[in-house]
């Protein structure tokens, strides 16, 4: 009997990578199914442009010069990462509940880490594309000067930011597991970065308490790393900021896993979490 149970467990154990890839491939058709190709292309090419145009004109009307415009353009180029990394990832929890697959997911033996990372793969790729296109807009349309020598560090900063932001999205998705819907949470964190993360003006202009809240968001550190890369700051400064981005990413992914485990236990105990 024991031997049989052991065999059973071994036969049904799915490898980490298989779970990872199957989720990465299937999620765009299921929980991320709302992200059709037109929506993805709009997120990559239209939203960054429109958001940048909006805030650049606000700066222009308020009497800002080229340096303020460049600051705002770059900030908004990077902040558009939140659409794919936070809103869409956060929304996957709602999708699971709405499609009635949450119960099955909660009782499946799949490795949770592989499952969440797999689901995050597409948003990470879209986030990278969104920020890259946004930075291209900032360079060619709004006069943000990026020296060629800054491109390698900039690329690393963008990749780290995308990872960290998707981790933050998964964290919010974990919180959304307990909520009736994630739309409120998603909206709050979709836009709050514009105010607290130094997107449109330096965080030093904020009241200290509010600025400290901003330091809790990966976007703040990711944006700081990107700005430092573009400005050609010393390696020490950029390295420190990369460290903070990585730390915020690890904290986000860790908290996300922790939250999902906690709410999973509650779901199995009460059977009420998956209700929509």
């Amino acid at each position: 009997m024991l031997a049989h149970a052991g065999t059973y467990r071994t036969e049904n154990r799915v490898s980490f990578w298989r779970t990872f890839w199957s989720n990465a491939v299937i999620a765009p058709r299921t929980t991320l199914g709302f992200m059709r190709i037109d929506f993805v292309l709009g997120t990559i090419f239209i939203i960054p442009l429109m958001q940048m145009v909006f805030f650049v004109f606000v700066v222009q009307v308020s009497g800002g010069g080229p340096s303020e415009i460049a600051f705002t353009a770059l900030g908004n180029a990077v902040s558009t990462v939140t659409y794919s990394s936070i809103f869409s990832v956060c929304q996957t929890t709602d999708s699971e509940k709405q499609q009635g697959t949450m119960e099955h997911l909660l009782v499946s033996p799949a490795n949770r880490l592989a499952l969440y990372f797999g689901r995050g793969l597409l948003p990470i790729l879209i986030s990278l594309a969104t920020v890259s296109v946004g930075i291209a807009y900032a360079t060619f349309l709004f006069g943000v000067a990026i020296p060629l020598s800054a491109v390698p560090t900039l690329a690393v900063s963008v990749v780290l930011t995308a990872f960290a932001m998707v981790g933050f999205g998964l964290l919010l998705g974990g919180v959304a597991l307990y909520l009736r819907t994630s739309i409120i949470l998603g909206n709050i964190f979709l836009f709050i970065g514009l105010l607290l993360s130094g997107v449109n003006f330096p965080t030093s202009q904020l009241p200290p308490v509010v600025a400290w809240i901003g330091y809790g968001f990966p976007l703040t550190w990711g944006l700081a790393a990107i700005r430092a890369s573009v400005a050609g700051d010393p390696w020490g400064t950029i390295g420190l900021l990369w460290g903070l981005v990585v730390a915020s990413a690890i904290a986000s992914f860790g908290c996300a896993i922790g939250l999902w485990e906690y709410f999973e236990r509650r779901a199995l105990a009460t059977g009420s979490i998956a209700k929509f």
Partner: protein
Amino acid sequence: MATADVPHVSRVRATEASLRLAFQMFVADPQWLIPSMIAPVVFGLVAFELFQGAGPDFLTYAILGAGMMSMWGQTLYGSGWAIGQDREFGTLEPTVQSPTPYVYVVLGRVLWNVVSGLAGGGIVYLVVLAVAGAPPALPDPLGFVALFLFVMLTLAAVGILFSAAWVYTRYSGFIQNVGEFAFYVGTGCMFPVVILPFWTNPIALVFPPTWALDALRYLAIPGYVGFAWGFWPDLLGAVATTVVYVAVAGAIFRRVELHVLAKGNLSDY
């Protein structure tokens, strides 16, 4: 033959009933105010921070712009959902089959969206006011309120047209989500449309709120430089485009009703 036997249905009563139902549904699930409000509050605060030191009238800019964005958000998402909800709930055909013209049912929902958008705008106003510490100076407060209500009407006209047009497209979600900022930019929510490239101006003028908002700024901000033709032509343009929107929406609704009765397939989602 049967139409003579159909009891008279008051359009006003139908609109009131639809408005009341929309309100009750909102009370049952009030979360929809939050998405349309969070972004404008944040944008209002960001604009306030950016506008600081740029003169006293820029507080009016920030509040007006953010309030406008709140109402736009509600129009774009809420009114866009006015017919979509019938399709998803499976109530489109029964509602269209009822003796009440469908447009008055949708009108009630759109009116509620305008009211809730106004509530969102009010909250934006209070938040920015709390941060600014003092209300903006308005030369003509009564005129401002009257014109602000008119801006709401222009948005309602846009809402009715959108709700009708969304029936014929599967891209309403795309237009709502991806086009949100484009509407804010194009209608000059936070800045005058005239500072945009000239080729964009004719597109912006297709939307009634562009005209109405420009007129409102002429009234509220001394020395405002908007469209060269000034306040009264702005107002005239707003009225004219609003009438056109309502007429076009009415025509689309008639087509939708005929289509539903003939094909019975519009609730396919």
